[in-house]
């Protein structure tokens, strides 16, 4: 059984083919990485999966449903959540509120009951707060729950973004460069957290990452994109010795010597 099945995805912007005929299949409970040089189309590929872009060609099946062409909020509601390369928190809201927004699809209090502030609404709100705090405890931010998100240190902002994504109780979480700009300490913590997402929460994780040590250490499978095309796929050992990958990263000629 596959959780995510993206087939022959192609997306062009004007004359530029950002993603060219890429196929990616992900089994549940895996940590999968998508790597590639800058501009290889990784983030565009994420944006297609999450519905921000519609693919020109190809289909995306998620959890048995066809999602290509659905709106981002519908896809998020189905259980696919993401973080952003350039952290997109709600900076002027508190840490707790950020996580509460992540829960939006799980809160159903109808308009009229909110206005009447019925017991049901209050209970739902109290429960949501408790669950949000659980999520915050999980990533270690509970003691900062009243701070404004924009005032958090960088590493905490990354963790908060993950907590917000977790709040949606996703089946699949897409992390776009979760350790970008982090120091080695923070990177180690983030690696730990990503492992725990899978091991403890049984989440499926897809990762875009430039930190090769991290990628090689935690991914069970790696797909390499270059100029929008998938040039290699396999486990860490396979990727490391693949001449086309080395060429993409280091340039022609390097492949021969490294292999």
């Amino acid at each position, binding site marked *: 059984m596959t959780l995510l099945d993206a087939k022959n995805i192609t997306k062009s912007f004007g004359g530029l083919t950002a993603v060219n005929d890429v196929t990616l299949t992900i089994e549940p409970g895996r940590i999968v990485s998508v790597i590639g040089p800058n501009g290889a189309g990784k983030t565009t590929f994420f944006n297609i999966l999450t519905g921000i872009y519609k693919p020109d060609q190809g289909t995306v099946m998620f959890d048995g449903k066809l999602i290509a062409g659905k709106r981002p909020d519908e896809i998020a509601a189905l259980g696919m959540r993401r973080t952003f390369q*350039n952290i997109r928190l709600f900076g002027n*809201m508190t840490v707790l509120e950020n996580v509460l927004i992540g829960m939006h699809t799980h809160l159903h209090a109808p308009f009229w009951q909110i206005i009447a502030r019925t017991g049901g609404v209050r209970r739902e*709100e109290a429960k949501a707060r408790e669950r949000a705090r659980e999520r915050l405890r999980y990533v270690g931010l509970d003691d*900062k729950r009243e701070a404004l998100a*924009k005032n958090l240190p960088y590493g905490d902002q990354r963790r908060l973004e993950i907590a917000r994504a977790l709040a*949606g109780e996703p089946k699949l979480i897409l992390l776009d460069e979760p350790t970008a*700009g982090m120091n080695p300490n923070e990177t180690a913590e983030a690696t730990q957290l990503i492992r725990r997402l899978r091991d403890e929460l049984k989440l499926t994780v897809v990762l875009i990452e430039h930190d090769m040590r991290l990628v090689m250490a935690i991914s069970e499978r790696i797909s390499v994109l270059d100029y929008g095309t998938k040039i290699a796929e396999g486990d860490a050992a396979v990727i490391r010795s693949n001449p086309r990958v080395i060429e993409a990263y280091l340039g022609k000629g390097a492949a021969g010597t490294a292999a």
Partner: protein
Amino acid sequence: MATPPPTSAWERITAPLRSGPSAYSFLGLYAAVCSWLLLSNPRTGLRTDIVFVFFLLLMLFVFRARVARVFKIGLAVALLAIVLPLFGTLNPYYIDVATQAGIFVTLALGLNVVVGFAGLLDLGYVAFFAVGAYLWGIFSTSQITLINPAAMPVSPLLFYLFIPLGLLVGCLFGVLLGLPVLRLRGDYLAIVTLGFGEVIRVLANNLDKPVNITNGSQGIRDIARPPLFFASFARDTLGLKLNDNQLYQQFFYFLVLLIVLVVVVVVSRLKSSRIGRAWEAIREDETAAIAQGIPLVRMKLLAFAVGASFAGAMGVVFASKQLFINPPTFDLLRSINILSMVILGGMGSIPGVILGAVLVTLLDLQILPRISTVLREAQDAGFPIPETFDPTQYQRLLFGLLLILMMIFRPEGILPDQRHSEELHDDAPPPEAPAPAAAEPVAT
């Protein structure tokens, strides 16, 4: 959240007036003196104007003071539901100002849902107000007979039904406007809403032919008021010697007060709910909001509908109170006026918006005209003031100046929403962030 520590000397001096036992005696004494001054000498004039402003200022102090809730509510009810109406029986002018202020508080709170909560700039908000006003204006007068000779004006009793009907129609227009334009962002949205506001006004101005629907620039007069069901109660039981006009003033004052209360409750509940959070998320970052599963279009439509419905309902009340409406009542300046109330008071902040609306209305209806009168009296007394100088003529200028000064020195408004205040003062030290962490680099 911990409140920020007192920063200025002023705050330290006034602190005892805001909390503790001294606050009770301060507020009590203040209220007593103000009420006595108003009731003992209710003549219209500069002195009463000043007392009246202090009276309204007291409401703000009551709100801000950290005293028992029962005391707060008790005092507010005593002042707004007893002292002010009683004063209104002695002097019809000020209660009318209070009613107008209430009407604009409702409108500003409605616009605040759209602009302050959801961050959608709406420059045509008054259109929804117009729709509500024309709804009751047309159906309660012989205007309806001009449209359809077989139809008769509805019974004035149906006024109460038309308030919720105005709400629904306002809501409907909000959705009608929202559906096509919500794909637009920022400036583009503002321009389209501006156009919409003008379209409604121009329609009201020109729909007197081929079928006379709105009576064009003549406006609609003799709009019906509901029967005074409480007339005998007020005259016989309470022994108040009031004519019908004064009774109507009391009626509209209490009606508007009631609507303001309901609106305040509704918007504050929405604000603290999942819906309010979703609006705020959209205002902050649409892309991030939609990635959390927030349906953008539906949530924006909801904001438009909620904001518009308040204006629609208030339009019905306004038409009935004024007895007469015409297209210029609902021009672009009115929309901008309401928007300036929201901005002046503090976008997104409910107490701020109420304060802004009261302040602007007061400035418009009372303070500036009074300054004119005083100047004219001074002129008559021989002071060298140019004949043509009349502050009411400079209303817009003063407004503009006020807004510019606000934007420079206090862009978040007078009583800002806590978070909005953060947004606009990025240089301010974060109040809650742990100190050592603040040194870390921040993502750009």
